[in-house]
């Protein structure tokens, strides 16, 4: 229970198979714990990470997740980047809607990740890939 940021709280994780999803959220929890995040914020972030990691596997095949706890304007934030070089998302507005899925899923992944995090941003290019950037604030 330090709450200090004496060491870099950072990780870069490959996402290739379903087990990597579990690893990504376990790692995020550990970083959040060391960064002094409250449980509710930590669990919200873990769930959102699970969604974007699964999207990498289901929709892009593989990619990676970068996690970092940073201090921004006096506040600690868990920054999550989920990147892949998959097919990209042609219609991002639709993809963000509750219930929209091109893969027979519930279509709630992106929309709920956005609700669970404090900041959420997607950049996607068809044929190039997708980067989801999300942040959870410690307070």
């Amino acid at each position: 229970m330090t709450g200090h940021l004496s060491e870099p709280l950072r990780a870069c994780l490959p996402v290739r198979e379903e087990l990597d999803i579990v690893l990504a959220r376990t790692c995020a929890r550990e970083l959040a714990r060391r960064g002094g995040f409250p449980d509710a914020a930590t669990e919200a972030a873990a769930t959102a990470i699970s969604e974007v990691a699964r999207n990498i596997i289901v929709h892009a095949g593989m990619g990676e997740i970068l996690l970092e706890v940073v201090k921004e304007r006096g506040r600690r934030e868990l920054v999550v980047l989920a990147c892949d070089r998959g097919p990209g998302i042609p219609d991002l507005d639709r993809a963000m809607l509750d219930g929209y899925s091109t893969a027979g899923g519930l279509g709630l992944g992106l929309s709920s990740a956005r609700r669970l995090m404090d900041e959420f941003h997607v950049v996607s290019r068809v044929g190039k890939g997708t980067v989801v950037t999300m942040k959870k604030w410690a307070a």
Partner: protein
Amino acid sequence: MSVPVLRLGDVLIASIQAALTDRDLLQLRDDLSDQVGRFRARGVIVDVTALDVLDSSAIRTVRDLAHTTRLRGARTVVVGIQPEVAFAMVQLGLTLEGVATALDLDEGLALLRQEDA
């Protein structure tokens, strides 16, 4: 990794692990559905205590499991949703849609017995 299904009288109990793949889960659904028929189970308890998140894919799985076993004639109760997990679910607006839930195994069993009476 396959999921062991325990049998307690006419109730089947399956515990879902965090690291299950989609294939494991489909397998579990088929196993459960099969065993409900074979053992004439009246109830099924799906224990999700070991799940560290209930993201949209886990929700769909649990819902599918419950619907399948219900169609086979067994009451189905999901137990062991952790408080933090429940909190994230509410934020998500994710629900188990008509699937009965109970705090833990004991309560789940009590609920099934109650419905039998």
